[in-house]
């Protein structure tokens, strides 16, 4: 069953001009994104830094207003058919910046209990829930419940944020780099917890991360973003096992070697770093792609099926696209 449907989501940020009228331009942060998330699944989101992942997450929660696009939760359009307050009770987010969602003047326990209290849970019960969640993210409540955010280490604060997001018993949790500040042992513990809670409460996750091993481990399906657009999407096993988009390939090959005698010597991608300010037409990866041809610079490139549920925005996978490596026209 589809729980969340996102269609044609777009958000551009205009840049200010300086006093001489230079600069300006528009950041195409999220530029027409369509996907859906089924009840109970984990959708992994990966992509270059600055490609619009956090902006997309904020749009889903309507923390910022989209320029265009529709978000449906349980089949109802958020903002019109479903009031924002209702949608925000059902969707929770763990922010990339661990200070962002914690009130510096509240103790950790009060921060976690705050949401449930606002939503009508009696204080004592909310506290109880806060403590039990703290214990489950590996923070002994007796030691940590009374601490303030600045009295915690980075990874401890990040776990408080996870507990805070889970306290409201949401349907969907958007995790934006939620385990990136954790050491590997605690990370394993938190990932195991997320999987347990998913079963226990039938949760659905949107899991944004730069750690490809973790995304592969957690996700049922994956979307790969590049400069505000989806470059590749599909079941985790086929995106990782049968990678089609040249950007995804470059991304996956950039994983560290894990061998002190064979350190990386060459950057995996050459060419200009991707620029979301007034991007040129055509494929946004063109300037760095080893397979780019003239045709790649004309017109929009749509996500096209490349096998069971696997979709790719690259002319090389599209029959009859005019790219010299494209498969022959499908019968």
């Amino acid at each position, binding site marked *: 069953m589809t729980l969340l449907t996102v269609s044609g989501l777009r958000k551009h*940020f205009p*840049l*200010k001009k*300086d006093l001489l009228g230079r600069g300006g*331009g528009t950041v195409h942060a999220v530029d027409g994104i369509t996907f859906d998330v089924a009840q109970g699944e984990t959708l992994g989101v*990966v*992509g*270059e*830094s*600055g490609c619009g992942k956090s*902006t997309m997450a904020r749009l889903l929660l309507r923390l910022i207003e989209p320029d265009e696009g529709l978000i449906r939760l349980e089949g109802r359009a958020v903002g019109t058919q479903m009031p924002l307050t209702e949608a925000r009770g059902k969707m929770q987010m763990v922010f*990339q*910046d661990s*200070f*962002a969602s914690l009130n510096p003047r509240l103790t950790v326990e009060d921060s976690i209990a705050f949401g449930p209290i606002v939503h009508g849970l009696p204080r004592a019960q909310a506290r109880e829930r806060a403590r039990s969640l703290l214990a489950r993210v590996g923070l002994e409540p007796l*030691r940590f419940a009374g601490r303030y955010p600045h*009295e*915690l*280490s*980075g*990874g*401890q604060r990040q776990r408080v944020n996870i507990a805070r997001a889970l306290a409201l018993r949401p349907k969907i949790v958007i995790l934006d*780099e939620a385990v990136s*500040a*954790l*050491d*590997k*042992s*605690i*990370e*394993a*513990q938190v*990932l*195991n917890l997320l*999987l347990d809670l998913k079963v226990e409460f039938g949760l659905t996750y949107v899991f944004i991360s*730069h*750690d490809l*091993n973790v995304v592969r*481990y*957690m996700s*049922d399906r994956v979307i790969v973003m590049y400069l505000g657009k989806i470059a590749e999407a599909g079941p*985790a096993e086929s995106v990782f096992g049968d990678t089609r988009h040249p950007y995804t390939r*470059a*991304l*996956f090959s*950039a994983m*560290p*070697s*894990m061998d*002190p*005698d064979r*350190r*990386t*010597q060459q*950057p*995996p991608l050459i060419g*200009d*770093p991707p*620029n979301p*300010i007034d991007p040129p037409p055509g494929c946004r990866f063109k300037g760095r792609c080893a397979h780019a041809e003239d045709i790649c610079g004309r017109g929009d490139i749509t996500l096209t099926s490349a096998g069971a549920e696997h979709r790719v925005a690259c002319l090389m996978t599209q029959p009859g696209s005019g790219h010299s490596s494209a498969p022959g026209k499908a019968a």
Partner: protein
Amino acid sequence: MEPRAPDEPLVSVSDLTVRFSRTGQTIQAVNGVSFDLAPGEVLGVLGESGSGKSVTLRAMLRILPAHRSSVTGTIRVAGRDVLALSGAELEDYRGGTVSMIFQEPMLSFDPVFTIGQQIAESVRRHMKVDQQAARARALEMLDRVQIPSAKRRLDAYPHEMSGGMRQRAMIALALACKPKLLLADEPTTALDATVQIQILLLLRELQREFGMSVIFVTHDVGVAIEVADRIAVMYAGRIVETGSVREVIRTPRHPYTQGLLSSTVRGELRGQRIEAIPGSPPDLAAMPPGCAFAPRCKHARDECLRAVPGAVDVGGGHEARCVLLKLAA
């Protein structure tokens, strides 16, 4: 073998302890950390969340809250007694001799000034150059850390950047004044693999270019392997193992290091549980007398609980604090 005088260390930390006092309790965040760092050397620091990595770096930069923390031991950097610095000397040390990349990028930028203003201001202050040269240096640094359209991003406010761009801007800020020592606290966690590798290559390049020493805290063993010469592993405010990258990664000797290295997610099947070290770290307000890892260690024995195990050298400067090594020796 040719005898060679060891390099005069750039950094020498000995018996560093940091305590935080809260109502009715004292948190022993750092408990006797000692290490040396040669000019141009990169020390990678791994360790449990909450084990004192950031607090150690903050102590070295002298930015812990003065009224609620107490720091003892000695920290010498480039010949200076860091804990004794004050006034203008301290100002010059921070940002001039040593600079830090914080775990939380938002903390090192002021939200009301643009990224360019902030980098240029720091350059102007520490490198004693004029406004124009400072801005040019800021631009050069943003370019080097791979921020797209660096020129236009100079005028961006911190909140207008993505997490990874802020992190890169902070790296630019930290490197702009060519510090002798860089304290890097998880500097690449917000970066995707392609940008991360480019930043690591840049750090290696700068380190060769002007002999910068680096202390690099990371949770990512792969990253540590890419940049570090030596590794230190922290647990409950102590360095429990240290040695060359090769030695520590290939033959970890402390049970905590062994557990940490085997918890890394590497292509596990979905649905299969990942192995984590069972149990939780000790209460830093009530530190046990012996090895702090004992309650979680499958090799623990009576002797482990008696006193904090001393460092045992297992060869070539590879040391670990575990009684098993003493028994084996």
